[in-house]
């Protein structure tokens, strides 16, 4: 089965759902992307035969993150809905998107982000909601929001603090610098490194090895088994 959107390609192949961010070269997360991701998540929740999800980017990069100017365009438009606290259209969009991101964390089937090239801002936030993150050694990862006068807005702060500890989270987020896949591994922000051309293939192989009786609370056990 295949679902083709303007910004995402989704293929269900033998139980494994391949969610590909598909606006090359940078696979920027545009407003259209956020809307389409929400639609796709709704459909995935109904797919009985979906047993694992692998998220990756088309071409050389995972994604450069949110299309900032598009988001900022919604920042001062008041929300029409029932939203409290000076709601804006931007807040509605991000709240809906947070729900979509949370699906990946809360689902009981394995979710793996296969990261090559750039994985910045909201794209890294999306990856953080995956159960596993694998990347290439030279992947370029970071949360640069503070350098634009913003903060990571879709769960990235809690996620990084939970994985790497508050001290590292504080440094990374306030500095807003990028770091490599190898550095991310040392900080516990990713779970494994593969050669660039094999990141996706290895993620698929790993997914197949854990699909049966998968229990996301046994993450460390699966990783130990993989290393052996």
């Amino acid at each position, binding site marked *: 089965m295949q679902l083709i959107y303007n910004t995402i390609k989704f293929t269900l192949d033998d139980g494994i759902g391949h969610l590909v961010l598909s606006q090359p070269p940078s696979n920027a997360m545009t407003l259209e992307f956020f809307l389409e991701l929400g639609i796709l998540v709704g459909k995935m929740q109904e797919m009985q035969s979906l047993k694992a999800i692998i998220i990756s980017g088309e071409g050389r990069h995972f994604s450069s993150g949110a299309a900032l100017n598009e988001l900022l365009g919604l920042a001062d438009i008041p929300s029409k809905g029932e939203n409290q606290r000076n709601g804006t259209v931007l807040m509605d969009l991000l709240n809906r998107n947070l729900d979509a991101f949370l699906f990946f964390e809360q689902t009981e089937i394995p979710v793996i982000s296969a990261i090559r090239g750039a994985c910045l801002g909201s794209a890294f936030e999306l990856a953080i909601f995956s159960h596993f993150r694998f990347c290439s050694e030279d992947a370029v990862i970071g949360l640069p929001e503070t350098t634009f006068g913003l903060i990571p807005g879709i769960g990235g*702060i809690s996620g990084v603090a939970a994985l790497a500890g508050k001290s590292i989270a504080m440094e990374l987020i306030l500095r807003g610098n990028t770091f490599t896949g190898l550095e991310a591994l040392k900080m516990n922000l990713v779970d494994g490194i593969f050669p660039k051309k094999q990141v996706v293939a290895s993620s698929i192989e790993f997914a197949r090895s854990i699909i049966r009786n998968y229990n996301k609370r046994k993450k460390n056990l699966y990783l130990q088994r993989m290393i052996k």
Partner: protein
Amino acid sequence: MNILFDVTDNIGIIKINNPPGNFLVKPEFMPIDELKNWIDANHLKGILVGGTGRHFSGGAKLDDLYALAKDTGKMHEEMDRGKILLNYIKTLNIPVIAAIQGSCFGGGLEIALACHIRICSENALFAFPEINQQLMPGLGGIGAMKEKSSFHEAMAFILGGDMINAEEALCMKIVDQIVPYGELFNHSFTLLKKMTSGRELKVIHYVMKALHNTNSLSKEDAMKEDTVMFCELAKDVVERRKKGE
């Protein structure tokens, strides 16, 4: 003066200044109101805490402690003031880095643990020696240790009362980074600059608030708060752009 305050480029520098050992004169090692005013008046974006000379701090002096213990009521009051100060530092909305060299013992270590990031030089030494005098850390150091290290590591360290070196402290996550002796201050200051220069104070406050929220709110509620703060900052960015800044 037992504490020196200095400001460079919106970064505050606090030095425990009671050489050679930098012993703490009392649990509230600096007046909290003075600290608050100093932060506000200088629009501080970050704080560096260190010691004058070769050591961070040797903690409380036993004689002082025993003298204080004669008056139970006063001791309680002073300990409470100390805890309020350390909790204030821990929950500050700007980053606080402890730059640790030489000895960092007892109350000194509790101060370091209240800071957000700990950087030490290769020659740093850490201990809770309280147990050797039939005492225990009294300013929240036990809870702070347990947050950083595992239960058994914290227990062995506090009950053992032994000194550990920088490498061991790094393994136990008591410190975040080790740098060569002599580079400690510059390295820590540069890091704080990289984390704060060019950032609006509000952005720094919101990042810190979001990080503190991860302790006080459920994960989902913390994330929802992040979204609210993001939207507010986005509005600010748009307004600044409209004004052509």
